[in-house]
Structure formats: C-alpha cells, structure tokens
C-alpha cells in the first residue's frame, strides 16, 4: 500500500518537472527526431548524469541496489527500432503520453489506446517471441564498466565531461 503512495508521489513530481521542461509536447519530441530542437535530449541527459552520480555513490556505500535489464540484442535492437518507428508517428512515449493528457493535449489519447492494443498484441505474440527473438544474442545483465573491466567512476566522469561538451555544442548551434 505504501508502495502505491510512493509511486503516486514520485509520478507527480516527475510529471511536474516533465511539464516544466516542456518535454511532453508532441512538437518537442518530433523536433528532436527532426534534429531541430534538442530540448528532450537536454532533459534526458541532465537526468541521466545527475542520477548516475547519485545512484552510483549510494551503490558504493551499500545503500541501493542496481536493477539491470538484460542485454538481449534480438529484443533490444528489434524492439527498440520498432518502438522508435512508432514513436516517430505518435510523437509521445509511454510516460509522456500521460503527461501530455495532463496538460490538455488530448491527441495523446489515441496513442494511449493504441499502446494498450499494442501491449495486448505483444501478450499474444509473447509465447512465440520468447522462443525466437528473445533468445538471440543474450548477454545477460551487463554494464559498460563490466564490459570494459574498469571501475564505474572511470566511465561516469568521462560521460559527464562528454555530456557537458555536447550541451555546449547544442547551445552554440542554438538547438
């Protein structure tokens, strides 16, 4: 029960910030895909950089656990590309579609209905997919520092530096 409460509070905070960052707009999402406006990329990378430092710090002192998704190339690459193709048409992703509805952009409703249908179709196809696509290229739950065989901070620090350089470039180009 407390879990549900925490979920709701976390969602409200996240949704509030998504709206403030203007990243739940169709126009912003499609503008990023058309390489005209990098607002959503700025938001995502800022989130990732901050949370990466915080979560790995807490991980180092033993306060949190990681929860990794397996790298199954068949699923992640084919599914990822499919997601992208649909996203380019819809202009909202699963979380932002709800956010868009919250700020009155009700065309997201068609997308939400479509996504529920898509989830149902996937549930039908799952018994077949689990024996085929989801067995292709399964590398298990791996992280970049594991693959490189180095401490995670040797990845995190360069990641932050590259992110800041990318931000500077975005601002220079007015993206």
């Amino acid at each position: 029960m407390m879990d549900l409460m925490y979920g709701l509070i976390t969602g409200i905070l996240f949704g509030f910030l998504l709206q403030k960052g203007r990243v739940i707009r169709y126009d912003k999402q499609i503008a990023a895909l058309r390489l005209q406006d990098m607002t959503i990329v700025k938001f995502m990378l800022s989130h990732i950089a901050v949370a990466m430092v915080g979560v790995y710090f807490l991980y180092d002192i033993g306060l949190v656990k990681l929860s990794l998704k397996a790298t199954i190339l068949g699923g992640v690459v084919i599914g990822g590309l499919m997601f992208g193709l649909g996203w380019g048409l819809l202009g909202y992703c699963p979380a932002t579609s709800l956010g868009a509805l919250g700020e009155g952009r009700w065309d997201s409703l068609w997308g939400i209905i479509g996504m529920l249908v898509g989830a149902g179709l996937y549930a039908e196809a799952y018994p077949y997919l689990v024996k085929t696509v989801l067995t292709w290229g399964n590398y298990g739950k791996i992280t970049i520092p594991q693959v490189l065989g180095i401490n995670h901070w040797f990845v995190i620090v360069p990641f932050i530096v590259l992110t800041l350089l990318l931000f500077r470039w975005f601002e220079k180009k007015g993206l």
Partner: protein
Amino acid sequence: MEKDRGWSPYLAGALSGLVSIGSVWFVGKYLGASTTFVRTTGIIEKLFSPERVAKMPYFLKEAPIIDWQSMFVLGVAIGAFIAAITSGSFRWQGIPDMWRNAFGPSVSYRAWIAFIGGIIAMFGARLADGCPSGHGLSGSLQLAVSGYVALACFFIGGMITANWLYKGGGK
C-alpha cells in the same frame, strides 16, 4: 507565449534526476512506464475472459494488477496537470501545432497515425523490455549496455518515421 516558456530543460532534467535518486534510495524503484500498459490491458481483458488471461504466459509474467508503476504513471498525468494549470500553459488541444502546419486540421488523420504509432511503439517497447523511461533513463543511469543500445535504436527508428512523415510521406 512568453508565459509558456517553462524552465530550462537542463534544470528540470537535473531535478528529475534527483527524483530518480530519491525513488531508488527510499523505495528501491527505478522509473519506468511501459509495463503499466501491459498490466492495464491485462485488467481490461480480464473483464471479458478471465480464464484466458489467467493462462497467458505474458500476463503470468506481468500480472494484471495495479502496482507502484501504475501509480507512478497516473502521477505523471496529475503532476503535468498541476504544472500546466499553475503556469497558465494548459491547453485543450487535439492537434499539435507542428502537425497542423504540415497536415491540416483533420482530427481523424491525426487520430489514426497516433493510434497506429501507439500500437507499433508499445509492441516494440515490450519486445525491448523498456521505453525511454525504463531503458533510456533508468538503464542508462545505471550504465546498462541494454539502456544505451535501446536509446540509440529508439532515436534511429524515430528519426526514420518522423522525417519520412514530414518530408512528404505523410501527405
């Protein structure tokens, strides 16, 4: 429109990163959204054919219940509503500006493309085991290989259809 400028995406993104840290720290939950669509569909299907849903392997894996993430997704809508209302940027709008400029005011055309896009996107997200929240944010911040592969594929796929649509394919 001055009112509608919002906050810097760097600031809003960084603050949302703190929300992510708080959620992982206090509740042990990483942000994600797409599993909720599976659970919700399961709940709806259960109304019509409970025996069938009870036997489907995917609904055994992702049980048709309301959980932490369902409430998170609901919260996103509420949070966005609060932010929009308090900043005067709430707008009841059925066709996005960019869409209207390119394809005109037809509600049904936008509805069909969004609906079809939604089906493809969610099928893909489930196959990939995550969406831009679960893979893109939560996976990437943990330096998961799957997060970065997924994120790259999301953007490649998205660039293909968005550019195709706006460079004549949609007309």
